[in-house]
Structures are given as C-alpha cells and as structure tokens.
C-alpha cells in the first residue's frame, strides 16, 4: 500500500498541491532553511517553478539534496503550507533520480536498511545484543509473548551505535524504576523507515512499513514508545494508513508524564550547566518543546540555559532527510556542516552539557565537538542518560 498517494504529476490537482499554490512568495521558507543559501531552487523558487510548469528545470540542480527535512520552512510558512510533508520529498526523489550516480554513502545506507533493517549494515541478528548489557531484565516479545502495556521500539542507532546503547541502558533503567510494563521486538525489529521516505525512497519506506506492521500485529500491547523521533514521526503520520492505531509516545515526553514519580528518584546532584537542542521531528514537527526541559529542570544541580536558536527556531543537526549519510557529499560541495554550526552556538552559551532527545544527534554533535576542538569543553548526553545518571546511588 502506498504511504503517499500523491505523485508529482497529480500534485497540482490534489488538495495538498492546491494548498502549495496558495504560496505568497514571501520567501520566509528560503530564509529559514539552514541550507537555503546553497540551493539553486530553495522552496520559494521551487513553488514559483511549479506554478510556471517548469519543475523539470529544478531537477537539473542537485541543490535539493541539501534539504535535511528539518520542518523549518513548514513551521514558518505564514500560509501553513506543509512543504516537508509532500513537495520536498517528491522533488528530492526526482532530483536523485536525475543524478548520474547516487552519493555512495547514501546508497550504502539505503541498501543496508533494506537488507539488514538498519543503515549501518550491522547484522540484523545482533539488533538486540545490547540487551545483555542492560543491567536490568528486558523482555523480548518473541521469547515471552505475554501482553505488555508498552512496546518499546528501540530503533537503529540506539540498538547498534555504542553511544546510542548508553541511551538504551538509561531508558531501560528508567522504565524499570518507574514500573513500566514493556517489551521489545529484539531482532524482529527493523528501522521504521522515516528517513527512507524523507530521503527519496518511498519504496523502501513502504517495504519497512509493511514488515513492521506485520510484526506489530503478532503481539498484544497498548502503546508504542520509541527512542527515536524519526520513528515517532513515521508511526504518527504514515503508519496509520496501514492500520497503526496503538497509542504512541516518544520516550522523552513519555517520561515527562512521570515527573512526580521521578522527582524523588533523582537523588544524585549533577553539577551541570545544560543547554537543550530541540530535535526537528520532536520539536517543530510535534511541538514537544516543554517536556524535555521539564525533565532537565527536575534533575538536582542542573542549570538549564538556552541557545539563541531554540524551540521552533532550533537549528537542525543536519541528519534528517538522508543528511545523516550525505556528510561526505556535502563536504565535497564545501557546505558547512549543520552539526558544527549548532555546537558552535551551544558552546557559546557556556554550558558544559548539550542535551538531546534524538539518537542521530549524539554521534553528529560528538563528532562536531571533536572536529572543532570543543570536546574538552562540552559533552553530549541524551535526556534519558542524564536522568539515569541522577538516579545512581
């Protein structure tokens, strides 16, 4: 089943296309786009080309590859046009189809995601290997089919990437202390596919969506709680087309519902000055701005300060929309890495911890801090890691 029934050909006649054609041509989208200056056809010009029936010309430039699906253009549009949802993925798909060769890093990530269910090309049979290091029991549905309240959809970077696994261990510890009745899919889980869709690969997304929905239907649970804002985004906005009707939470806002229970558990004072980076999917797309900040303020000793660009104005880490696997391509083009732009702003606050809620950001920001020589001045921690640290004896 198609996750997005609108094609570039049918777009102008569709309700979504008619909405796009109400564009005022004010240019706020291009101005707010973090890579607007490197695009030959930033969103405003693209819409103008669409009106003129000249979209083909847009595909002659590869500039649209720089769209990192950060939702900034969508959040700022005075007409409320949902560019990141419809036009940009369709245009990006065509832009990539017109390239003589797909950027190698991106091609490998897409092939790995199809074959192994994760973009890193890690063995699908080792997806749940982190469980052995969790420090608390983790129930895997395939081994114990009893119903659970929550299906914890762990996702790729949290399952495999060593620093992502720190997030997993922290989340597992928090769930146990809070008495959450949960289970995971273990090796049956595959990437939710959100970046496949926003990269250009609707077929990959549909394949993953079909697979994950079939696995979901094998077990009984009331809600899906996921560590990844990208998975949250896919489950919320796309999976319902295939019958996804369970409750849905991202771990961070889910934990924020337990503030009263958490508070007495956070006994260890953390002498950190923390600045929080709003993930694009969790923030601009789903407006979870306050929940992570509530959790951070709950930690004894933590002083929370804001970056200049925060909440709806947050600057993307550069990982969305396939940007996670286009660093080499962007570098060859001479583009500034958005993760470096972001940590420069974070360091300027004087904070010593950059707190995040998206598994992509840990690797991107830790790398950017090292590249810029700031790794002695600032560390990156997921909100869950800080909460778990504050729970230690």
């Amino acid at each position, binding site marked *: 089943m198609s996750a997005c029934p609108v094609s570039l050909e049918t777009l102008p006649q569709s309700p979504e296309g008619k909405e796009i054609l109400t564009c005022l041509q004010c240019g706020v989208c291009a101005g707010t786009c973090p890579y607007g200056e490197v695009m030959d056809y930033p969103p405003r010009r693209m819409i103008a080309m669409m009106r003129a029936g000249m979209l083909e010309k847009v595909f002659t430039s590869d500039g649209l590859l720089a769209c990192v699906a950060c939702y900034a253009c969508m959040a700022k549009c005075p007409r409320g046009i949902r560019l990141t949802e419809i036009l940009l993925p369709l245009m990006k798909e065509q832009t990539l189809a017109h390239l003589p060769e*797909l950027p190698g890093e991106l091609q490998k990530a897409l*092939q790995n995601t199809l074959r192994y269910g994760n973009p890193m090309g890690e063995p699908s*049979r080792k997806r749940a290997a982190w469980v052995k290091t969790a420090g608390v029991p983790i129930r895997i549905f395939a081994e114990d089919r009893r119903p659970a309240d929550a299906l914890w959809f762990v996702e790729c970077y949290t399952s495999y990437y060593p620093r992502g696994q720190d997030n997993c261990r922290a989340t597992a510890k928090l769930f146990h202390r809070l008495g959450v009745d949960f289970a995971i899919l273990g090796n049956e889980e595959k990437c939710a596919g959100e970046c496949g869709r926003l990269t250009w*690969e609707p*077929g990959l997304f549909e394949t993953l969506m079909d697979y994950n929905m079939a696995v979901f239907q094998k077990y009984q649970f009331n809600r899906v709680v996921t560590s990844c804002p990208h998975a949250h985004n896919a489950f919320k906005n796309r999976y319902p087309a295939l019958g996804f009707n369970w409750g849905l939470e991202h771990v961070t806002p889910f934990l924020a519902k337990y503030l009263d229970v958490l508070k007495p558990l956070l006994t260890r004072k953390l002498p950190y000055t923390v600045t929080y980076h709003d993930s694009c999917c969790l923030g601009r797309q789903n407006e979870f701005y306050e929940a992570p900040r509530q959790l951070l303020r709950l930690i004894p000793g933590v002083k929370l300060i804001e970056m200049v660009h925060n909440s709806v104005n947050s600057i993307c880490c550069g990982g969305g929309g396939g940007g996670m696997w286009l660093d080499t391509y962007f570098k060859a083009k001479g583009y500034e890495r958005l993760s470096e732009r972001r940590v420069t702003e974070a360091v300027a606050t004087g904070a010593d911890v950059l707190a995040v809620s998206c598994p992509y950001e840990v690797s991107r920001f830790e790398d950017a801090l090292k590249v810029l020589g700031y790794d002695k001045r600032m560390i990156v921690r997921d909100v869950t890691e800080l909460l778990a640290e504050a729970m230690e004896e």
Partner: protein
Amino acid sequence: MHILVLLKMVPDVVEDLEIADGGRTLDLDYLRMILSESDDHALEQALLLKERHGAKLTVLALDAPEVDDALFTAAAKGADRVLKVTGLDAGCTTRLAAHVFAQVAAAQPGVMPADLVLTGVQAIDDLDGLVAPLVADELRLPYLGIITGISTDPSGKIVRAIKEFPAGVRGEFEVRLPAVLGIQAAERPPRYVPVAKVRAASKSVRIECIPAPLPAGDGCPAVNVVQMKRNEPAGHAEMLEGAPEQVSGRLCAILAERGLF
C-alpha cells in the same frame, strides 16, 4: 549484441556464520545469502554496455535463498530475461556450479549463443576464481579475467577489455567474440535501483526456472572438506588507559621488557 551474465549467491558474512553439526559445512539453515559482489559488478558492466551500444541482457543464476530478490533487482535495473537453475543442493562445489551454468546456458533456448558471457572473477566461496574459466572451457570459448572495463568496436565482434595487473599496471586486450570475461570491477559502482521498481518487477517479471542437469562424471568431487573450524585467537591486544604520562610510561616499559629498546 547478446550479453549473458552469470550470478551466484554467496554466504553473507555480515551475519554470523555457523558451522553445522558434523563440522564439514556451514549451517545452511542459519545462513543468509547475498549476491556475490563481483557478480554484481559483472551485471553493472553488462548494463553499461547495454546503455552504450544497445544489447539484449540475459541473467542466469543458481537457485539459493534470496536469489529471487537478486533477479528481480537485475530486472529492475534493465535485464531483459531472468532465469534460475533449481534443484541444486545449496553450497555446491565450484566445479559443479560452472558445469551447471555451462550446461544450462548451452541447452536452454535463446540463452546461447551469447556474444559476451560476464561473471564475477572471484567469490568468497571461490577465491581461486575458477567458475568463469571452467564455464569458458565447457563452452569452448576464450576467457580473460580480472577485467575492470570493456568497450566494443563498431562491428560488435571485438571488445577491448582492461585487465589489471599487480603494481598498478593495466593492460588493454582485444578479445574476439564470443568470449567469457571475469569481471573484477565494473567501470562504476553497481547502481542503486529504487525499491519501488524492484517491487514492481517482482509483480510483473517472470523468473524462468530451469531444473539442474545431472552432474558430469561420477558426481564425486575430487576435493572434500574434512573439517571446518573457527579461528582460535592466539593473542590479544592490550589497551593502555589512563593519563598520557601513565600510558607513555607503560608503553616504554613494555618496549623495554620486550627488548625493543
């Protein structure tokens, strides 16, 4: 021009390999199979030739788990006809694989004559690179291996093939067709084909299934596997941790202990 590409699935070493009870084969139930990397390059080279000069492209594969995905992907990329040989035991020997390829190619209507037969020069289960020359021998065709580029002359009867040698030396050979070429690498990396196209091919393309011919000779391989074993680590790396002064001190002590200075 008619190009025949031979594809073979090999164990996917990203996933764990397990040795079966008895210790003489891999556990085939546990294996995942993937298209051999150099066969993928052979397919890409064939697609490039088809795009440049126009050609009919036939792909013949040996049956194995996940081979249908590989064939539908080949069709989505531009193969005109896809066939697979069924009824072979998984993990057949190199000699048997070559024999089956040659027998099926010769017997199946429309597969031969082919002007060019391309296949990977090597596979992880054929490090000696014997499949392509054995196929050439059975088909009585000339063979050239370790090829990294092919161009054809206007007559379409001769190709120029780039062959790699050690120390960065490359040779250019003229090969009169028909011929078998063992591809080390295509002129560009194997292309990406959108998953939607593969899904569409899986609905519209028919894979022709050909029963495997009887093995040549008495069917007994000349070489038998006696035992498979995992490598046993003989040593380990020691990671030095601590402050730079401590690490450098410990490093100097180790070098001194071992008589290295």
